[in-house]
């Protein structure tokens, strides 16, 4: 028989279904919009995390290009740019490299302005502009801070630099015309000058171009870089590849962003349950409807099309709403997950249409699956059976009731309600289980969330409420410049005058060449060359630091080393000595204040310490000191980096006033401040104002608090969100089960009414049923949720890896919020169902199919 499936009829049927069941359709669209929102959120967040991590790796490389070729001539550069595999190129002509001592951890090229290169390395001035006049220069903020250049247009800039042709180091003076946040150029960036200046400074500069290449397909960059040179016959050119595209890194990024995509599995399952729980209310009617249209000749293909179009119609208005809400949520959440991106919102910066496509598809699948699940019997039943679907089970119930009535027990409303309630045991258990699952999960997560202790976290991460750093010591990539002096006496005066400040301490450091005789250095040598308890030799574990090795060998052989004089006072001194453990001698404040003694600080372990012995004499700045005690060096007290030469060094703490006498022009490296926490907000506002445009870096108490809250949000937001959705589904199930158990009994209630039961009695019976339904579930939920949450919480606080920043707080807030809603629903829903049922006359309900 020739099949002829007219599929257009499906669209008409779907459209009419919507027109006839508007309330149900709107409810379904709401649920679908929620699914779409969750999918969009988790997909978008996954993409943002992936791109953010990628960006982090690209920052380390210092350029967005895939490959950087160095030392090309013009013809080689243009040949590479024309290659078929190359998408685009950016080029740079550097005339030299900044060679000031403080630049030793960074590579800053003095180069003629190249707008493309500047774009690719994000080295475009955000304050001021690119150089236009002969003596103008644009720099990044880290370079300016290291060289103590105030961020002011027109400021004089004196630079030491070495030409690329290998000529002698030169010093030239420029005028600052623009600057930018270092960001991507943390390790490698440019100092921009005009083409004319470049030619003037280096008239005989070799024809040397650095070319950044972006490929169409950024896979196996190492092989592609070689292949490009080979195919063009270019020899003797060096190159580096962007490690962000390294396969291992890409795999790691994939692994790190995977949890965010995996959430979609939970979302999909929850979504199917949620949509299913709504369509299930009219499942019987739907199955009978499908049976009816099957009996009239609708083919399986037409039914499949009808269902898929039904899902599409529901999704059409709901999915875009979900997209908007989900992306909005992502915009709000992503800055808390991807830290350090304050200038741009990561969700907007890494916008991609793919999460929306995936979310749309998944939402449609979820809707389709839920619709199909609800009418699953259609595929298993003949049309004749499908048309009778749902009627037989009611008959069985009625028979059972008739049997009970047969015992001649007096019929009471409460007993009838009990009988009605017992008839829905399966649904009650299902509803209780889904509610229990959601509430136990939520209460456990909530208890963990409220147990997280901010104070413990802040104390664990910071020595003081505020750590203020000189501009040249803002990051570990900068070598500290003792002459930077961005923390001025006026600054300190203003700080000390604040009423909320309870404790202040300063740290100044200076690298000093020192020497020790053989007897004095024996203790340090023994420490580094002796074995630890685990059998390792400390000197060998330090072998990864070549500068340390050179310094140590020099110290061992000649006794010469770099000592770091640390002038310390107040809070900083007490923190330096606190928890350090005295490996030798004892600290005596009175003797220390005489200025004749120092405290030696070095690396320490249970097997010893790397300092000179207590009682040794050391000469610093021409003055002799006796070592009164030796302690473990607290490296977290200072920020920035010392010189590479000081990789192996020994520190000596001395009173601040002694240090000032020895090195009167040296600045303050760090300031530690404690305050009265009640005035935190005012103090931070003051501090922001005080440090504005000064390059001074402040690590605030609120930074740690923000980190704590972000970490908390990062750890608990998504699980709590999923728990919340589960609870929503559980509550929907709870309500749906109650609604559907009552609405399907229109005929049965009409029979009661026709037999003489009053409407008031029917209403009371339904309300009793609701109360029984809600009461039993609440009776199960409260003890089980309370008990499991307590047991899990106690175990978690004793064994969890994050218990170090937790204080046990038992809270069942989600349950206390949910219970009144459940109780109210148990009372209100039966009344609503009663009103709906009583809209039709007894005859209408008796005749209803």
């Amino acid at each position, binding site marked *: 028989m020739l099949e002829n499936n*007219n599929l*257009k009829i499906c669209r*008409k049927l779907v459209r009419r279904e919507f027109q006839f069941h508007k309330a149900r359709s709107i409810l379904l669209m709401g649920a679908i919009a929620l699914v779409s929102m969750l999918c969009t959120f988790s997909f978008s967040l996954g993409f943002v995390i992936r791109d953010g991590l990628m960006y982090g790796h690209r920052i380390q490389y210092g350029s967005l290009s895939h490959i950087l070729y160095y030392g090309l001539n013009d013809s080689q550069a243009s040949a590479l740019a024309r290659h078929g595999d190359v998408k685009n190129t950016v080029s740079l002509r550097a005339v030299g490299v900044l060679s000031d001592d403080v630049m030793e951890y960074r590579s800053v090229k003095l180069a003629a302005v190249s707008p493309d290169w500047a774009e690719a390395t994000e080295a475009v001035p955000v304050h001021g502009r690119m150089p236009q006049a002969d003596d103008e220069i644009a720099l990044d903020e880290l370079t300016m801070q290291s060289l103590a250049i105030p961020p002011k247009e027109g400021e004089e800039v004196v630079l030491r630099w070495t030409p690329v042709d290998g000529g002698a180091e030169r010093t030239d003076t420029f005028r600052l015309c623009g600057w930018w946040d270092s960001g991507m150029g943390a390790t490698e960036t440019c100092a921009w000058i005009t083409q004319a200046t470049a030619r003037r400074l280096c008239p005989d500069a070799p024809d040397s171009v650095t070319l950044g290449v972006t490929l169409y397909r950024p896979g196996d960059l190492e092989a592609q870089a070689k292949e490009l040179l080979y195919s063009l016959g270019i020899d003797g050119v060096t190159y580096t590849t962007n490690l962000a595209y390294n396969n291992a890194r890409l795999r790691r990024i994939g692994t790190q962003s995977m949890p965010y995509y995996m959430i979609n599995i939970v979302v999909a399952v929850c979504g199917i349950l949620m949509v299913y729980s709504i369509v299930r209310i009219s499942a019987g009617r739907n199955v009978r409807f499908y049976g009816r249209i099957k009996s009239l000749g609708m083919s*399986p293909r037409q039914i499949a099309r009808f269902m898929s179009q039904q899902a599409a119609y529901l999704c059409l208005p709901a999915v875009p709403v979900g997209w908007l809400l989900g992306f909005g949520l992502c915009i709000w959440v992503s800055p808390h997950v991807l830290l350090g991106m304050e200038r741009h919102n990561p969700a907007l910066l890494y916008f991609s249409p793919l999460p929306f496509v995936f979310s749309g598809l998944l939402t449609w699948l979820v809707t389709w699956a839920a619709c199909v699940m609800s009418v699953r019997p259609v595929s298993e039943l003949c049309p004749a059976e499908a048309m009778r679907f749902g009627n037989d089970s009611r008959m069985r119930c009625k028979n059972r009731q008739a049997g009970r009535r047969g015992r001649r027990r007096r019929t009471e409303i409460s007993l009838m309600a009990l009988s009605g309630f017992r008839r829905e045991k399966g649904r009650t258990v299902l509803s209780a289980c889904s509610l229990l699952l959601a509430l136990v999960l939520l209460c456990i997560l909530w208890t963990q969330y409220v147990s997280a202790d901010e104070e413990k976290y802040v104390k664990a991460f910071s020595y003081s409420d505020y750590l203020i750093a000189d501009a040249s010591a803002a990051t570990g990539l900068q070598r500290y410049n003792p002459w930077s002096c961005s923390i001025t006496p006026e600054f300190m005066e203003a700080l000390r005058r604040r009423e909320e400040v309870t404790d202040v301490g300063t740290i100044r450091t200076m690298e000093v060449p020192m020497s020790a005789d053989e007897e004095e250095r024996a203790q340090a040598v023994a420490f580094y060359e002796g074995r630890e308890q685990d059998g390792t030799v400390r000197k060998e574990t330090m072998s990864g630091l070549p500068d340390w090795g050179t310094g140590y060998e020099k110290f061992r052989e000649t006794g010469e080393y770099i000592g770091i004089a640390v002038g310390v006072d107040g809070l900083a001194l007490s923190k330096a000595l606190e928890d350090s453990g005295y490996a030798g001698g004892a600290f005596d404040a009175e003797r220390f204040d005489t200025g004749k003694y120092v405290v030696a600080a070095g690396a320490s372990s249970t097997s010893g310490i790397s300092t000179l012995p207590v009682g040794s004499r050391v000469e610093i700045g021409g003055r002799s000191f006796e070592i009164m005690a030796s302690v473990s060096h607290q490296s977290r007290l200072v920020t920035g980096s010392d010189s590479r030469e000081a990789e192996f060094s020994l520190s000596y703490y001395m009173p601040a006033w002694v240090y000032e006498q020895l090195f009167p022009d040296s600045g303050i490296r760090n300031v530690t401040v404690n305050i009265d926490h009640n005035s935190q907000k005012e103090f931070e506002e003051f501090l922001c104002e005080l440090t504005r445009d000064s390059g001074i870096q402040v690590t605030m108490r609120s930074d740690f608090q923000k980190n704590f809250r972000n970490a908390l949000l990062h750890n608990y937001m998504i699980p709590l969100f999923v728990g919340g959705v589960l609870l929503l589904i559980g509550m929907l199930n709870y309500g749906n089960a109650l609604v559907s158990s009552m609405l399907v009994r229109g005929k049965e209630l009409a029979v009661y009414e026709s037999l003489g039961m009053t409407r008031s009695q029917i209403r009371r019976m339904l309300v009793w049923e609701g109360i029984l339904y809600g009461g039993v579930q609440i009776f199960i939920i409260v003890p089980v949720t309370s008990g499991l949450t307590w047991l899990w919480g106690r175990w978690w606080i004793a064994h969890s890896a994050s218990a170090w920043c937790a204080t046990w707080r038992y809270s069942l807030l989600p349950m206390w919020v949910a219970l009144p809603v459940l109780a109210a629903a148990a009372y209100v829903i039966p009344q609503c169902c009663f009103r709906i049922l009583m809209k039709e006359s007894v005859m209408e309900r008796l*005749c209803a*199919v």
Partner: protein
Amino acid sequence: MDIITVRNLKKCYGSGERQVRALDGVELTVSKGEFVSVMGASGSGKTTLLNMMGGLDMPDEGEVYVDGVNLSGLRESELAVFRRRKVGFVFQEYNLVPTLTVEENILFPLDLDGSAPEQGFLEEVVSLLGLEERMQSYPHTLSGGQKQRVAIARALAAKPPVILADEPTGSLDSRSGQNVAGLLKMAAEHYHRTLVMVTHNRELAQLADRVVYMENGKIGK
């Protein structure tokens, strides 16, 4: 010439002690253009037999041939096409699609098949059944008798050779019932269709060319 042949048809519902034998070796033939009434007590298997003839239910044993087609050998999709083209159903509960208008309901089997209605024929059927004024109405606005007339029009629309009516007057009062049964017989005769009607009503059954009695799943004497 036989248009319906039923051979040794058996059908059970349920299992174990609850098993009900709905059909127990039914043998029946219906000639082309014949009007056959099927009578019997509740649970005697009348509706089950009609469902088997229309491909709405599958027998456990036995065969049903309708217009030369063995229904047991048809796939689900072929059965759907069979139901559209070979049989027209008139159910006790009308089974109209509530979201479609009267006109759309009548044309529904044709729409499913993607075939165009014969305009003259349809107008004639609609006029014969007195539905001209209600073509744009929805089923919920119609009386029981009107709904059943729409169901009859729908059964005739695709010009199927066989019309199967399952207690078409069961939900109607006796006057409407008489009218509907009369219309059904008239329409079948007018368009030379074979009509098999299940009914409880002895008077209506007498309208048929032949009355078949069923008892405990078997054709009685």
